[in-house]
């Protein structure tokens, strides 16, 4: 009943005749520059054409779910940073939101507004990195430098408030770790002013490039129906034409009070995924602009850090829209300060699965474009 990888990759018997071809298997990864980490794809190839993709996971499986059973809810937040480290704040928020809903902790407006601003800034930051890396994967090194140049501006803003550049551990059940820095509002405004023309530059530099368009347009199409069945979420799902965004559908934070659009693609190809993310950056800036001027007054932490938050017995599932899709936290609580079981429904795990539907029939070089447009973060897949 249970098979192994070896059973899957048994090479087919050679066909007869002098001019016949044979399908073969090659490994892409676990150490490969375009898999963005230690992802391994076993490819079944017919010459240059991909016949089948078998993702092999677990090269960075750290057992976070098991560790989580031995951590209090507040302690677990720092592990969520290390899932999809590019949307660390949104991961923090997902854990906090689930725990707050379960333990019935009410938050004030200040906390909600600051959380929303931070999450949107991080969405921009994450997409900046994706944009740079997409360029690098497809052979252009310049976007990487441009993307990081602008990313560092935001990193500085975060660092000033949170004291960390990447794994912030800032949003806590019951509030925020620290209050925002006095310079925060001013610096975010100057960032918005700085980044708006830069986004136009992004589109000119990479989006307007014929080579890039040739590499992305009509490559790696994912039909809407397949995308839903494959469990894809986030920009990958929206590029396929399904306007499913938790910020609109099940608003959390203060998303119900701000105006923004959900960009939706039509074809579901790599270009749509590219375009959706560029447009999301624009919408995120719109959200931040609406909120940054009136951050309400109030306390930033409503539960004292020394208190161990106890969650009443039950099953809880909370989710947020991170930069890559829906991160769901499933908590089984037994009434103590520790979860009985904690399960992470991570966006990349589910998004990566759709590559098995996209890739067959394409060339090996297109696979790099697809991987890049899916925006994979491997530790988030393996947990």
């Amino acid at each position, binding site marked *: 009943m249970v098979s192994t990888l070896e059973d899957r990759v048994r090479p087919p018997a050679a066909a007869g005749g002098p001019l016949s071809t044979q399908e073969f298997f090659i490994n892409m990864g676990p150490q490969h520059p375009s898999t963005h980490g230690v992802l391994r794809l076993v490819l079944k190839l017919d010459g240059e054409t991909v016949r089948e993709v078998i993702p092999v996971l677990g090269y*960075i499986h750290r057992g976070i779910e098991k560790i989580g059973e031995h951590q209090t809810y507040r302690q677990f937040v720092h*592990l969520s940073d290390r899932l999809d480290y590019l949307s660390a704040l949104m991961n923090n928020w997902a854990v906090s939101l689930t725990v707050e809903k379960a333990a019935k902790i009410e938050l004030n407006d200040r906390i909600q507004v600051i959380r929303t601003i931070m999450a949107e800034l991080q969405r921009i930051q994450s997409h900046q990195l994706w944009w740079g890396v997409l360029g690098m994967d497809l052979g252009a090194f310049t976007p990487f430098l441009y993307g990081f140049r602008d990313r560092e501006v935001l990193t500085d803003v975060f660092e000033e408030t949170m004291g960390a550049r990447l794994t912030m551990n800032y949003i806590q059940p019951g509030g925020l770790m620290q209050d925002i820095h006095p310079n925060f509002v001013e610096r975010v405004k100057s960032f918005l002013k700085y980044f708006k023309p830069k986004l136009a530059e992004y589109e000119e530099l990479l989006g307007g490039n014929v080579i890039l368009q040739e590499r992305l347009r009509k490559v790696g199409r994912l039909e809407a129906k397949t995308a839903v069945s494959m469990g894809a979420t986030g920009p990958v799902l929206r590029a396929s034409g399904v306007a499913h965004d938790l910020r609109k559908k099940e608003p959390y934070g203060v998303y119900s009070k701000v105006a923004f659009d959900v960009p939706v693609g039509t074809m579901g190809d790599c270009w749509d995924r590219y375009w959706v993310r560029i447009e999301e950056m624009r919408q995120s800036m719109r959200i931040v602009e609406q909120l940054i001027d009136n951050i309400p007054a109030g306390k930033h932490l409503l539960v004292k850090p020394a208190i161990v938050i106890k969650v009443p017995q039950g099953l809880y599932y909370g989710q947020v829209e991170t930069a890559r899709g829906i991160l769901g936290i499933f908590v089984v609580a037994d009434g103590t300060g520790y979860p009985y079981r904690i399960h992470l429904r991570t966006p990349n795990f589910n998004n990566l699965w759709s590559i098995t539907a996209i890739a067959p029939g394409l060339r090996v070089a297109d696979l790099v474009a697809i991987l890049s447009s899916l925006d994979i973060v491997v530790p988030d897949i393996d947990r």
Partner: protein
Amino acid sequence: MGLITEKLPLYLDPVPGSSWFLGKLDEVINWSRANSLWPLTFGTSCCAIEVMMAAGASRHDVARFGAEVARPSPRQADLLVVAGTIVKRMAPRLRTLYEQMAEPRYVIATGSCVISGGPFIYHSYSTLRGLDGVVPVDVYVPGCPPRPEAYFYGILTLQKLIKEGETVRRPGERRKPVLAALPAGMTVDQIQEEMRSLLVTEKNSGDRRNG
């Protein structure tokens, strides 16, 4: 060329009255090894963003320390920067990568995970608690993840070791690794000062040899 005419004479003694220089070949070789490290593109998790990407990008620019030519193939690289957690399943693959690299090869381990297991030390059935059981490590850079500046400190420390001839090992030979930590509570100015002093150790080592 500027670098060579400026820095190389530190290792060479001019012969009086002629245009000849005398020096130990080893020292010249070590000097050139230290200043042309080719790291392997290898990142497993969060540290890769800071140490491989942010450090290599425009703001921090690892090219200043001569270690920017990241190679995807281990056969062309001589510096293995292990950026991120290593789990049981990855360890044999990492060992293979290390063994495929050109000699002499150096290893920098960045981040808490490869030092001790970091946040995954307890109750994890798969995370390795430290990298030293898999490959010999020259320099550890602590942090979770370390900042690019901390990584540069690690590179400079490694360069110092190479120049002093301490890291040229025979296969299988183990040596106690160095922890390249920046002390807590250090200010940016102090870090820059420290970096400068590390950079001029070249001069000092030249002086020491002369004296």
